[in-house]
């Protein structure tokens, strides 16, 4: 033991081992990305910029119940409603202060109609506060921009839970057996 330590002290073995490791790593592919040029692909279900959903007829799904505003932990959702004909509720203004939002996604969970969602868009920095104060029109435009077509319909079904299946065991639940099966296939 003592001789081993002596050899280590004289010949710098632990330093050489470390240097060998860094030399080996030199020949591995880089893990970094040149960000503004090469964009990082986000995973489906990412919690990014908000959007107000539209139904098949192209009308806003939101009915102005105010649950999202009540649940919001940073209290950044403002909803103003008025009474229309036949005592119908009309959403006059629906505003989100994006700078105060913490992207927890609780508004999406609170909404009983699936009217608000978080898109996968995350690059929206700006020089002033005004463009980041989302009004109803901007939020509806976000839906057209980021959820056009099939994606919007699929979005709630796939990513925004809790769904009923989470309250009971179901087929297709992620299990270790399937991991093992996949690894065998790969071999």
């Amino acid at each position, binding site marked *: 033991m003592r001789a081993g330590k002596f050899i280590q002290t004289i010949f710098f073995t632990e330093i050489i081992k470390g240097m060998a490791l860094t030399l080996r790593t030199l020949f591995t592919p880089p893990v970094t990305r040149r960000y503004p040029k090469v964009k990082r692909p986000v995973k489906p279900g990412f919690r990014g910029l908000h959007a107000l959903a539209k139904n098949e007829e192209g009308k806003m799904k939101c009915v102005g119940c105010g649950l999202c505003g009540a649940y919001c*932990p940073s209290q950044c959702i403002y909803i103003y409603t008025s009474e229309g004909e036949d005592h119908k509720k009309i959403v006059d203004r629906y505003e989100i202060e994006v700078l105060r939002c913490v992207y927890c996604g*609780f508004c999406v969970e609170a909404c*009983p109609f699936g009217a608000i969602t978080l898109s996968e868009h995350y690059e929206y920095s700006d020089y002033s506060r005004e463009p980041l104060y989302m009004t109803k029109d901007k939020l509806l435009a976000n839906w057209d921009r980021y959820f056009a077509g099939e994606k919007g319909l699929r979005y709630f079904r796939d*990513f925004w839970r809790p*769904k*009923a299946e989470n309250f009971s*065991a179901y087929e297709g639940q*992620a299990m270790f057996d399937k991991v093992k099966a996949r690894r065998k296939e790969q071999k």
Partner: protein
Amino acid sequence: MEDIEQTEKTFETKELTISMGPQHPATHGVLRLLLTLAGENVVKCTPYVGYLHRGIEKLGENRTYLAALPLTDRLDYISSMNNNVGYVNAVEKLFGIEAPERAKFIRTIVAEMGRISSHIIWLGTHVLDIGATTPFLYAFREREVIMDLFEMLCGARLTVSYPRIGGVRNDISQEFLDELYDFVLDFPSKMDDYETLVTENRIWKDRTVGIGVISAEEAINWGLTGGTLRGSGVDYDVRKYAPYDAYDKVEFDVPVGTNGDCYDRYLVRMEEMRQANRIIRQCIEKLPAGPVMADAPKFTLPPKDMVLKDMEHLIHQFILITKGPTVPEGEVYMGTEVPKGELGFYFVSDGSGRPYRMRVRAPSYVHASVLPRLCEGGMIADVIANIGTIDIVLGECDR
């Protein structure tokens, strides 16, 4: 020549008081230390906290139990998953509900992933402070994998808000489990890499062995927990002695040190990462089938697709979100083992949907208070080693 002799005769040695931080990169955030120095020796060290105070305890009292969850992300922001797990466990204890088995296993998996990612940051920054750049880069490479897995799981990388009272937000997907298993199999070799670079390195040993020594008895008296306490040889781990979630169903060892110096605390945390990896592996292999949300409609949000089909679920949705759940009166304390130590949540409930008092027992706050004990009498360079080794995050310290 005469001048020098004259100077030597009249030269006065004075103690110098300097302010280290709050913008010092080695203070891991906004810790400010007021150091009184005699030459290079630290005579007196006084930590000042409060530069990151956001009033999380008070904010928690103004939100319902369900809506206060994202606040806990901002406590210890590099292991937000562990804080969430601690919070939901405390609230569940207050409500008297229990998460289903599968949810408990998933929580254990994500909490241990959070522990690995937190310890990886600790390793990278601690080693970087002391002077080694390479392990920092390697550490962040592995952390990125965990962050990607978190993003796949819940859509956010850092402020996850994934667990929910009575379970978890959504079930894990098969791709997540696949990729996590690949990571688990791969991780021990990465750990070997870190150890090759650091553990036996003579510079590292010179800087840490015998620095910041604190005896077991003293460590207990200072109220230390977690890796900082175990480095002094006290075998205390909340996961082992008051198991929550699925920790009583998995096997793991609690590493303890002997000398209570920086080097032992380093060894303890390195071994903890290996043990966390072992826990994740066991949890994946034992993961049971079943629901991931408790069947407690008075306390948990109903399934989304049932809200518009069923009147009762719709009522529950509205009541829970606007008024909050109806909670039994009483007090509850629940401690959980987060990477930094024991994170405790203490609730006083007056029967309404919001806590009357929410107190957070943050390990970093206690650990910051021990800094004078570790630093005084040492050199100024050792202050950096001591700050790194007690592993504090100021978001949690100031709350």
